[in-house]
């Protein structure tokens, strides 16, 4: 019996993990706010924040910081957190460590939904809703296809292949819509929406927090159930989990986060795949710790990437280019490192 006391509980936070999870976002946040075309010292950073919060008069550089850079920084964090958390949730739900919102087709479904809504002339709400709905349709389609295919050959790869297949189909639909769209009005609107990017953000864009916060809270509240679902549907059911209900909640929340990110910043790949693995390397696989860690790392990672995008060249580099340059080699490293391999 004395043995158990010596076995640390992996579900509890360790000091080292907590320090990293607090220090990393704080450091990246301060760097991201202070560097840029108009560098801001840490002193004036705090005085600007203070002035904003207390409603004092601000000078031009302080205004630029609060009205331009701060919203952009916060949106980058929201997008990074959304894509990463939805990636981690999908991985657990589909019992597959190599899926992500983009590989599952949620992103291309969301793009198609947005393009279609713009084509038929919907308003902003209509576009958002259509984007979410088509993302949902694609995820369900991919999951259903996988169910049929994996009856014969069950492998983590079948889900990925189904995802790639459906993604490319929906990307083709997006191209089709672009081809038939009015080149003077609709096409620029579609292109602008799909390309996204954080360069033109204002304080107004931060309204997405009203969608982001409740969705994240719901996912965090049920995160322990993802552990059980990762054991398989039958086992989870026999352990008393209402598998159908949780599957819908998780798919709904994760897809909503994905379509929201697509509407803010366009299709940014790799984040949802790589960040959950990065978080697993630090805190382990238990979703009790994994989901909060993924949230914080995802926010920090995309903020870091967006800061690079602003700083690297005189023109802004699209986010997806940098995430691919970081993500692809990192993922190959993960494949080499994993003991069992990702196949079969």
């Amino acid at each position, binding site marked *: 019996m004395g043995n158990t006391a010596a076995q640390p509980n992996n579900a509890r936070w360790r000091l080292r993990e907590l320090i990293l999870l607090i220090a990393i976002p704080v450091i990246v946040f301060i760097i991201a706010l202070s560097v840029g075309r108009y560098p801001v010292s840490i002193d004036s950073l705090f005085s600007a924040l203070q002035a904003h919060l207390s409603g004092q008069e601000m000078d031009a550089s302080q205004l630029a910081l609060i009205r331009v850079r701060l919203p952009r920084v916060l949106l980058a964090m929201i997008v990074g957190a959304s894509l990463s958390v939805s990636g981690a949730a999908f991985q657990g739900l589909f019992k597959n460590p190599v899926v992500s919102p983009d590989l599952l087709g949620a992103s291309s479904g969301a793009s198609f939904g947005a393009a279609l809504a713009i084509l038929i002339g919907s308003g902003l709400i209509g576009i958002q809703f259509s984007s979410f709905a088509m993302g949902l349709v694609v995820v369900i389609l991919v999951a259903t296809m996988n169910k049929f295919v994996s009856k014969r050959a069950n492998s983590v790869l079948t889900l990925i292949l189904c995802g790639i297949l459906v993604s490319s189909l929906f990307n083709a639909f997006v191209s089709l819509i672009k081809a038939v769209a009015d080149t003077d009005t609709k096409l620029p609107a579609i292109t602008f929406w799909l390309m996204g990017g954080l360069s033109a953000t204002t304080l107004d864009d931060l309204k997405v927090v009203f969608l982001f916060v409740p969705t994240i809270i719901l996912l965090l509240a049920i995160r322990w159930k993802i552990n059980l679902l990762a054991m398989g549907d039958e*086992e989870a059911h026999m352990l008393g989990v*209402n598998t159908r209900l949780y599957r819908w909640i998780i798919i709904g929340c994760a897809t909503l986060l994905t379509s929201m990110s697509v509407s803010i910043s366009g299709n940014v790949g790799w984040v949802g795949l790589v960040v959950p693995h990065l978080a697993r390397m630090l805190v382990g696989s238990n979703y009790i710790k994994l989901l909060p860690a993924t949230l914080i790392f995802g926010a920090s990672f995309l903020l870091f990437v967006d800061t690079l995008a602003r700083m690297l060249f005189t023109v802004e580099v699209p986010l997806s280019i940098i995430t691919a340059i970081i993500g692809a080699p990192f993922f190959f490293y993960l494949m080499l490192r994993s003991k069992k391999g990702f196949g079969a």
Partner: protein
Amino acid sequence: METLIKVEHLSCGYSQKAIVNDVSFSVQAGEVACLIGPNGVGKTTLFKTMLGLLNPISGQISYFDKPLHSYASKEFAKKVAYVPQSHVPPFPFSVRDIVVMGRNPHINELSQPSAEDYEKADEALTLMGISHLAAQDYTEVSGGERQLAIIARALTQDTKLLLMDEPTAYLDFGNTSRVHQEVEKLSDMGYTIVMITHQPDHVFRYGDKVFALGRDSKFVEGVPEEVLSEELLTELYNIPIELKTVQLREDNRSIKVCIPLS
């Protein structure tokens, strides 16, 4: 004696095609009941139907005098613990993370395991003799240890009844014996156990009751000593079989063993 499981005129199978036809049996409190039979006669189908994972074609199943279909999954999990064949999940959860999952029926929908739940998990691990593995990756321990962890998980559900799907599948000789020893211990502690097994020897050794499922909808139930004859076993497995009673040197105990002759 209290009847925990009652199965009446049950037919089950996939898409209305009955594999198991019109079987009736019951399991009383404290019994160890073994389900045996050759491959492909529907043991797993019967088991899945008993667990509510498949709908029966006809007939009734009830647990604790309440029909299976009227249980919600959480309510059922508080009464009956299922021990599946252990498999390797895609993520390296720790052994304790796996075991504490058994507390789910007792945990609120939006909550997580409490310190008390982890204590229960550690108690179950200690009972199964694998408390030293608590913090290790479940994916890295041996097959026998994984199976013991899955049994420990079932124990944390706090049920009287355990349904085990061939707990010694894919285990080597030593691990098979180790798992059976733990199952026997649980039976001595008062658990009622229903399990699928492939070895008649184990039925003689641990079983109070046997359900033998054969080809062409054959179904025999009873006390192993009485119903498991050479003829029945030969018919079930389609090979000549001899039963011998041997006396152990260690404690002069007599046990019946089953020897295939082909």
